[in-house]
């Protein structure tokens, strides 16, 4: 027997329920909105170089989101998702990792990918599903992925990456190469069965994985008050026997500090960690969503005061690591760069017809070959009806 089958607890002889809200969970805060540090706060490991890289990533994030929403409104792009107001959660956590650590994200963590060094044109090629997209134009915009950067390709079904992260991290442990996996998801996805399966598998099999929940208050229109009744997502980590911490998700230093500590624990002890980052989704769920139908401008304005990028800027200026001149210059340059990149990516050819049949299997089946041949004949007969591929048929 590996463990005690029956653990003796304190005996009671009258009915005494444990209250569902009795788990008290503190929240780690290091940086105040004005850029000052809380008294006695433990600072993360950070120097000017790392701080500047993080801040430039945040700036890129904000500008890309802003410009791509505008491009979608202009009809140039089919779909986009911003992470407005919660950029610090993904960027701050990614900054705590080693480049060899695997990132398995949900879909609103482009900040982590930016921090890893995914280039502007790579973002664009994916969003415009052109033939230079690493994903070969097969998924909707924002479903990025890069083997080179250890960023697992995004999949739309919610929460599926959670048990996968447990398995990926278990494989890392077997290899013994001192790396871990970080797995991002929202508080809504944490209602999926895969969340419970994944946390339990990771805990039981001692996988070095950081489960990073971005609790941004909304799942499309559903507020977190209608998503769960317990004390956030963090209380569940405790239930699965996993070390757990809640942080202010708009506090870049708190996110960085917690993730640095989580990574150390995961790798040194072969164990999962849960981080719940509290934030607010200032933007719409996606460009297909309109939040005015389910929340007020007043509510949004209240949370806008907690802007994580402004908070970091205030700190950077107080550190004398940044100034207003640099601020103006970087935002101006980024806006120009993004606009120019859109113009390039949107006119690059779409993938060929043949490529649609690649990667279903390692080698196409006879059925796929037959279907490709039939389809080619059909398109040759009616080329005007299939303008994307007709001109480039082999």
């Amino acid at each position, binding site marked *: 027997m590996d463990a005690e089958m029956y653990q003796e607890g304190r005996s009671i002889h009258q009915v005494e329920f444990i209250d569902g809200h009795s788990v008290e969970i503190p929240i780690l805060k290091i940086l105040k909105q004005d850029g000052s540090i809380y008294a006695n706060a433990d600072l993360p490991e950070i120097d000017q170089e790392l701080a500047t890289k993080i801040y430039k990533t945040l700036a890129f994030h904000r500008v890309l989101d802003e410009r791509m929403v505008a491009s979608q409104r202009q009809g140039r792009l089919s779909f986009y998702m911003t992470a407005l107001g919660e950029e610090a959660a993904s960027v701050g956590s990614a900054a705590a990792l080693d480049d060899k650590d695997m990132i398995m994200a949900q879909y609103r963590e482009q900040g982590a990918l930016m921090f890893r060094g995914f280039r502007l044109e790579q973002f664009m090629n994916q969003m415009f599903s052109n033939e230079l997209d690493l994903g*070969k134009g097969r998924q909707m915009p924002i479903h990025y992925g890069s083997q080179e950067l250890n960023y697992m390709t995004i999949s739309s079904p919610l929460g599926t990456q959670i048990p996968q*992260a447990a*398995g990926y991290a278990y*494989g890392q442990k*077997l290899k013994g190469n001192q790396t871990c996996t970080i797995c991002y998801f929202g508080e809504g996805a944490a209602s999926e069965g895969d969340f419970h399966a994944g946390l339990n598998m990771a805990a039981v*099999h001692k996988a070095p994985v950081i489960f990073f929940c971005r609790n941004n208050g909304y799942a499309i229109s559903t507020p977190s008050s209608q998503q769960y009744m317990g004390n956030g997502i963090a209380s569940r980590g405790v239930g699965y026997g996993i070390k757990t911490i809640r942080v202010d998700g708009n506090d870049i230093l708190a996110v960085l500090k917690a993730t640095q500590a989580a990574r150390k624990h995961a790798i040194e002890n072969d164990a999962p960690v849960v981080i719940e980052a509290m934030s607010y989704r200032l933007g719409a769920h996606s460009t297909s969503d309109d939040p005015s139908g389910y929340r007020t401008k007043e509510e949004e304005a209240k949370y806008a005061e907690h802007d994580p990028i402004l908070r970091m800027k205030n700190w950077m200026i107080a550190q004398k690591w940044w100034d207003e001149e640099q601020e103006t210059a970087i935002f101006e340059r980024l806006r120009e760069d993004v606009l120019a990149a859109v113009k390039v990516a949107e006119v690059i050819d779409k993938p060929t017809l043949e490529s649609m049949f690649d990667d279903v299997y390692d080698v196409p089946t006879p059925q796929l070959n037959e279907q490709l041949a039939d389809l080619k004949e059909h398109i040759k007969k009616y080329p005007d009806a299939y303008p994307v591929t007709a001109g480039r048929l082999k």
Partner: protein
Amino acid sequence: MAKMNLLQAINNALEIAMHENDSAVCFGEDVGHFGGVFRATSNLQEKFGKNRCFNTPLTEQGIMGFANGLAAQGSVPIAEIQFADYIFPAFDQIVNESAKFRYRSGNEFNVGNLTIRTPYGGGIAGGLYHSQSPEAYFAHTPGLKIVVPRNPYQAKGLLLAAIRDKNPVIFFEPKKLYRASTGEVPEEDYQLPLGKAEVVKAGTDITLLGWGAQMETLEKAADMAQEKGVSCELIDLRSILPWDVETVAASVRKTGRLLINHEAPLTGGFAGEIAATIQDKCFLNLESPISRVCGLDTPFPLAQEKEYMPDELKTFEAIMASINY
């Protein structure tokens, strides 16, 4: 050569696979020290350690999610779902994740190392939830391979091929045959091809097509028909996805008749797909309508299991009806 039953052949294949590759890992419910409820993974934990052969919590979606992640990482997961009837909580992980992993990432990532083993089928008084044959659900999913062995020799060779194949494979094991089917099996390593049917017995009057445990049924029916002077060609499809159209079509061009037998319910069963394809490829060769002898469109019964099964008598009747059409 050694005499093995189907379970021993599977256990032997798993041992070879785990021996050749340090990153091959077997897991599932009760798979560890206990060796699985049918004992397919017996002694593997003792031989390869608790990190490489272990019990999981009771969570099929967790098992498959974990397996997908492990395969994406580069390990070789061989996951067991205790009964195919319990695979459905993992349906999303298999259909939306395993099957599409390579495609959706443009081959940046893949789970080609993944093998899912699961016992299927009736004949053990298992009722609704220990008897189902769910291959057709998965056959509708590009990106998966589906394999079903009919005897110990086939099981070992096909399982080794499935484990080494660079695509996710669901390996359905006919649990009725686990101990009932025995035969000579080479002790050394060998593989049998995926996606390739096998002509088990040559014949001239009608083609009988099946897979897994139903191959025994077809053999019995063929013997009965032989006594009536009807020569049956017997084909084991072996792979449901992708399936070997050419071997089946070549046989039907010769015999002019086709009967397909499977345990799963008739409506929406894989026999429908085969029939549609073969009438397209062999329309002018057909002497009679393609016949399907399948499970009924009821849930799998318990007390009337014998009545439900597409047995040799039903198959024999259908052969004669086809011949006399």
